[in-house]
């Protein structure tokens, strides 16, 4: 019987045919834990009677949400997790590499056909590598640390088909915002999103990561791009690529199918306070802004920084705007540095910070005061996400963020 890509991944892992709707205790290939959700996961692992983790090599522990530690409690959590990593002989402990999802991807720790869990909702980003990857809570992670497996209800798949090439200054972030607006914040709850069509097939890996990253904003359990040549080229040199070409069978059953045309797309903005409140940039153009954040696991890669720098050119950012730029990882930071992009940002007046989650997590630095307005390339504009519950966050692409930072107000990147 014809199977979806996600059904195939579970079937391959289990050595038998597994269908959507089935609940399976599936083995996991990788478990990712970070500094916010980690301490509780370790505590639960111990409460469950855990003494040795299932496989130290299949665990990645990283610090990114509060790096460098911004409080004594945060520093304590880091110490606690470091001790755990040493005690359990977990080799993959990263103290300073960058945002968890970016680091997992660039180290080649996610691959096609794998089942990956992370104690972070945006773990779905690894779908860009063709993995079935999903976010879980700390107690579930405690269970995984002990047993190396977890109950999964194999999800139905919603197929997203996008065709055509993007017009200038329009890209993957605009597309995924458009998709989120159409499906809604709970449009894919308990389901997987499969991204196909010529737009995704020709999209580079950073763009695919941006799109898969936001699958959870529609409630999806996973977002996945069928692994292909682009995936293979990205993974080559990062991991063993006995590439696994995987895709849904013709005739596979999808819960729903949506079509999008990239050619007609214009810059999109998600307005406060829901990710699915998506409008054309012209609807909010002219809105004064206090802060612009270019970064996060959604849009903090070299390509994103370059897109923003291209829009910026040799101009300066508006003097009344705090522009915070945070590369997603040390590797991406170095690439941008060597390409002269960081110098451009600093000259233009930006505050460039070391790789971490920054204002995106709303607990470290870059917080907003009541009444302030932020424009952000991250993935969530919930009330209070970046500080005061009386502040407003708009989401957009790096191009729109840069154009707006120049003008001090939301601006169409095609008009600067």
């Amino acid at each position: 019987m014809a199977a979806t890509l996600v059904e195939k991944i579970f079937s391959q892992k289990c050595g038998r045919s597994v269908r959507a709707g089935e609940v399976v205790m599936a083995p996991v290939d990788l478990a990712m834990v970070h500094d916010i959700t980690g301490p509780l996961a370790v505590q639960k692992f111990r409460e469950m009677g855990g003494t040795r983790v299932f496989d130290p090599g299949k665990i990645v522990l990283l610090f990114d949400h509060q790096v460098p530690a911004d409080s004594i409690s945060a520093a304590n959590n880091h110490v606690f997790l470091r001790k755990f990593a040493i005690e359990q002989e977990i080799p993959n402990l990263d103290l300073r590499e960058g945002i968890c999802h970016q680091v997992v991807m660039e180290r080649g720790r996610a691959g096609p056909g794998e089942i990956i869990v992370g104690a972070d909702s945006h773990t779905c980003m690894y779908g860009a590598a063709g993995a079935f990857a999903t976010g879980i809570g700390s107690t579930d992670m405690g269970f995984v640390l002990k047993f190396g497996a977890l109950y999964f209800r194999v999800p139905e798949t919603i197929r997203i088909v996008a065709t055509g090439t993007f017009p200038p200054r329009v890209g993957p972030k605009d597309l995924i915002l458009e998709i989120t607006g159409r499906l809604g914040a709970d449009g894919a709850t308990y389901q997987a999103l499969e991204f196909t069509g010529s737009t995704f097939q020709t999209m580079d890996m950073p763009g695919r990561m941006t799109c898969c990253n936001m699958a959870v904003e529609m409630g999806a359990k996973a977002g996945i791009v069928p692994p292909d040549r682009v995936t293979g080229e990205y993974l080559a040199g990062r991991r063993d690529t006995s590439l696994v070409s995987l895709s849904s069978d013709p005739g596979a059953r999808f819960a729903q199918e949506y079509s999008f045309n990239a050619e007609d797309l214009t810059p999109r903005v998600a307005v406060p306070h829901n990710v699915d409140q998506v409008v054309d940039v012209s609807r909010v153009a002219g809105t004064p802004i206090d802060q612009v954040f270019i970064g996060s696991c959604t849009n903090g890669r070299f390509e994103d920084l370059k897109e923003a720098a291209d829009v910026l050119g040799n101009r300066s950012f508006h003097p009344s705007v705090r522009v915070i730029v945070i590369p997603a990882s040390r590797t991406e930071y170095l690439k941008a540095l060597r390409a002269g992009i960081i110098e451009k940002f600093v000259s233009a007046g930006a505050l460039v910070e070391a790789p971490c989650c920054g204002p995106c997590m709303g607990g470290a630095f870059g917080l907003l005061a009541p009444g302030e307005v932020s424009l952000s390339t991250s993935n969530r504009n919930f009330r209070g996400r970046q500080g005061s519950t009386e502040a407003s966050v708009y989401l957009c692409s790096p191009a729109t963020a840069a154009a707006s930072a120049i003008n001090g107000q939301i601006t169409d990147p095609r008009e600067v």
Partner: protein
Amino acid sequence: MRVWKFGDNIDTDAIIPGRYLVIYDPRTLAAHAFEGTRDEFAESAREGDIIVAGRNFGCGSSREHAPLALLGAGVRVVIARSFARIFYRNAINVGILPLVCRDAPSIEDGSAIAVHLRDGYIESGGKKLPIEPVPAFLQEIIDAGGLVEYAKKLERVETCTGSQS
């Protein structure tokens, strides 16, 4: 025991803001539950109070701090028209019962309701509102007293065994 009524898309940042994620103790977290969103909740929620919400309750982050904060405030049951996936599992794992009830929006804020779990309905304002059964594999975890208790009894798990949800 009263109902605290909320709308659609109540996200985990609203339930517990990011700046409190360094805390793991339910009672301490509870002091900041819905801070800036509905401040009177932390002040006056009592043991046994029930949260009632619309669609997509608990969307957003995987932070287990969200159900823990509710637990610390005394909440044992959350009733919603629908739940976000990660919150739903986290709730069960920490010992909160998430109940799906299509008629949840008809329940009034501040009202008293009775949950008849075994018979599968909620009594609200003289009406019986049906609740959806919890999926069988999760019911097993609830019956064990949560995932920690369930896991304690296991030496190892058998992978790829399955059942229909």
